[in-house]
């Protein structure tokens, strides 16, 4: 059973490599951040597996990681608001950008045309 669980852990790590590609590629900051979030979820999974493989105390590390998984993302969301200290729910998005008001095609169009804000500033 230990061998199988180690194998599953390797498999989860391999799937994290795909998430790392998305962190590298972006293009939007939200893509990078969400991919990092996936690495966090995968890390928790690996820790649970390692708990059974080597030491059940690793579960405490998994609890800590799961508890704080959202911290970085909350920091990201805050930093993206105009004053760097707000909440995206406070401001309504511009009317023409509301996806519910769009046909699926139009929404996909927005996704394709409005690319990497980082890159437009020349550092993406």
């Amino acid at each position, binding site marked *: 059973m230990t061998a199988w669980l180690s194998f599953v852990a390797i498999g989860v790590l391999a799937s*994290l490599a795909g998430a790392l590609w998305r962190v590298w590629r972006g293009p939007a900051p939200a893509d990078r951040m969400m991919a990092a979030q996936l*690495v966090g979820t995968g890390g928790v999974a690996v820790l649970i597996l390692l708990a059974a493989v080597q030491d059940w105390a*690793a579960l405490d*590390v998994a609890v800590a990681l799961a*508890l*704080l998984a959202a911290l970085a993302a909350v920091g990201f969301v805050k930093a993206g608001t105009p004053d760097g*200290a*707000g909440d995206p729910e406070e401001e309504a998005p511009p009317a023409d950008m509301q996806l519910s008001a769009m046909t699926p095609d139009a929404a996909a169009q927005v996704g394709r045309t409005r690319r990497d804000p980082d890159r437009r500033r020349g550092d993406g």
Partner: protein
Amino acid sequence: MTAALGLALDAALCALILGVALAVVAGRGVFRAVVFFIVYGLLAAVAWVRLDAVNVALAEAAIGAGLTGVLLLAAHGRLRRAEAAQDLAHGMPWSAALAGGALAAALGWAWFEMPIPVEPGPELAEALPRAGVGNPVTAVLLNFRAWDTLLESIVLLAALIGVWMLAREGDWREPLGRPQHARPGGVMAGFGRVLPPVGLLVGVWLVWAGADHPGGAFQGGTVLAAVGLVAVLAGVIRPPWIGAPLWQGALVLGPAVFLLAGIAGAVLAGGFLTLPEGFAKPAIVTIEVALTVSIAVTLAFLVLGPPEAEGAG
């Protein structure tokens, strides 16, 4: 079979870590580097578990994956407008590559040349039963090498004073950090109310369990700092101003109790910071609780940064 798979697991993990580190230093874009560094912290926590260092993994998980991320992301948000068009040197800095490569090679060479020590320190194995706690790392931190830990708690305070000295004159009486706000009843505010109680429980458990199981003042303190930060970011708790007496008391509580215990040891047990054998456990637990409070408050304040009023930029 199991051993080979374990080795493959280590190799895969290290390959990911190295790839992430390469992306941190070589990828264009400050934001990309910051996100990769957060990912690095997550993977490093897993690596520490593989190295049989659950105590370290706990600290790394809370700091590397949580607090550092918030610190760097907030700073990046602040600096976005001032960001220079160019964040790396032009072209390939060959001399820097050479220096880094030489350093890595020297360390790699040293690894194979280093003598393997007589393990695990016979003096330590002999002294551990008298330390008062079953977790050897806690015993080292709060009993055998208490000097290091005492001075370290003072270093944290020094760093915090350094951060506060960067506050502008007019902001001195403002709450720490930037004024955080969130939509009342929104997702963020709700999250900021649900998570901290659970985190409080986990943090206290880590301190309590730290005497005999992995955990302790540093691990519990960092978890508490992180969930406190969630509450502040979500606008649930308003941070105090620098001079708030209660919070200043919390900052110095740990070092003060530690110092008092040290002096008591000098009087009663014949040496500064020597814990008398029969009282080792209660003394360690007392110091640890006080230290946890101070570490949690200091780290949270450090990440929040100097006070800054609205509209400042």
